[in-house]
């Protein structure tokens, strides 16, 4: 979200209003960290809603959580962790001035990003087929049938799925933006615009990617692992 990627492509040294390149780099980093702070509060609003309703409707949350595909969820977590590794290694490659490695790692990250979104799409499609999308077509009869031990009220069950779609949807939106940023970074890296002296865009783009990863690290247990223990 910083303007420095564009800016610095055109002015390899630093922009006129900065004293030197270091000041510019510090500013860009601080800017990204502050932006991530606002992102924490952005997701925080939904975490607050989640906390309240999980406290109120634990049974419905438990049943909804059971209905998610834990295998796909776990695989997706692993995919994101792998993408974080490639990002971190990418920054290292940029630090060392290894252009070819940098491009490969950035491309890998994009591939992982698409893999995550693809798997997420499959999961959403399953939810669609199960009529678990909130609204008029919503139907929780299968949950009531599958988990007779958990007493479920179908109305608040919709709240769980509303939160599920809002949270994973906005997370996916962040992933899409992240993939966009990384396509941009890959292009510039391929053009050889980053060097050990100047790789701030890769670094702050990486910060953003890691942040989106961390959000998922919390979403995974909060949405998928509420209650998986054997039913009595």
């Amino acid at each position, binding site marked *: 979200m910083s303007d420095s990627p564009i800016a610095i492509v055109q002015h390899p040294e630093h922009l006129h209003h900065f004293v030197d390149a270091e000041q510019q780099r510090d500013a860009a980093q601080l800017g990204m960290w502050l932006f991530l702070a606002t992102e924490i509060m952005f997701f925080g609003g939904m975490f607050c809603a989640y906390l309240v309703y999980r406290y*109120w*409707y634990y049974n419905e949350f438990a049943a909804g959580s059971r209905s998610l595909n834990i295998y796909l969820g776990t695989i997706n977590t692993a995919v994101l962790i792998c993408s974080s590794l490639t990002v971190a290694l990418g920054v290292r490659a940029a630090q060392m001035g290894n252009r070819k490695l940098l491009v490969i790692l950035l491309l890998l990250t994009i591939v992982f990003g698409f893999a995550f979104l693809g798997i997420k799409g499959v999961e959403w499609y399953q939810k669609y087929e199960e009529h678990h999308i909130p609204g008029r077509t919503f139907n929780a009869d299968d949950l009531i049938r599958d988990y007779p031990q958990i*007493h*479920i*009220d*179908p*109305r608040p069950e919709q709240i769980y799925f509303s939160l599920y779609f809002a949270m994973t949807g906005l997370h996916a939106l962040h992933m899409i933006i992240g993939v966009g940023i990384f396509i941009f970074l890959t292009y510039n890296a391929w053009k050889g615009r980053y060097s050990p002296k100047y790789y701030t865009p890769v670094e702050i783009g990486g910060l953003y990617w890691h942040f989106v990863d961390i959000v998922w690290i919390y979403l995974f247990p909060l949405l998928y692992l509420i209650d998986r223990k054997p039913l009595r």
Partner: protein
Amino acid sequence: MFDNFPLWPARASAGAGNVDALFIFLLALSAFMCVAIFAMILIFSARYRRRRGIEAEQIEGSTELEMTWSIIPMVIFMAIFVWGAVIYFHERTPPRGASEVYVVAKQWMWKLEHQEGQREINELHVPVGRDVKLIMTSQDVIHSFFVPAFRIKQDVLPGRYTTAWFRATKPGVYHLFCSQYCGTMHSGMIGQVVVMEPAQYEAWLSGGGTSGSLAASGDTLFQQLGCSTCHRSDSQGRGPNLVGIFGKPVHLEDGRTLTVDENYLRTCILSPSKNIPSGFKPIMPVFQGLVSEEQINALVAYIKSLSAAPTGAAGGPSLAPAGSRSQNSKE
């Protein structure tokens, strides 16, 4: 002052005087602060206006002064807080034995039902000197029950009960406003509270034909909906025995302990899975959408009547033995 230019609202409830007293105290305090600050500004402006040859004197500041004007206000604020909190606590705690009025708000109308069974729209008749507890819910959006003369206000929410209470002290007709914006005719959602002398009130009560008390219609409904097949007044039913439970703690299957109040009963009717008393199976059907707000009110009133003291006297938690339903269904 003039009839069409009043500057102070009528004071017609037991609590109104307390609110006014605190308000007047705050007014005096504010007036004092304003006068003090404005006087300082005027004096300084006159005394230290710019003159040729006279320079301003640079003063760094004074920690003692800063502490003084931080701590003294803080102490005063805490006093105001405590005073306000006491009034609020009083306003939010209906006295035991208050007579109850169930309020259902909808766009753009107030529907009120006395426990004796009288129904009113946009009008509430109450006698002087009786504690009245309002048990309110909304059919659609958020409304707010506001009677300026009583200094009470409480938002009325869809999906749950909120309560308020007052004791009228002066006969008269007072405004009942909806004070939470609720759509097109928000400003038309005005009713009136008619406060009457007890004798007149009794006359008014006996005037309107009613179909019996709210609890009695709740009883009928209880049979019609088949509640009584499980909730029996002995311990043999598949559902909990409802006699004498109101106001008592209930232990739930998941380990929580709640107190049975109006909201608890409401939740149990509409969404039984949320609170399952320990020792019972979650087998009760969901009644959301099957009963109207008025019917829920009647059921709640009926279940509460099962816990009323046999004499109907105010005060003291009921110790009515199980099985005393018939004599209590009417208070």
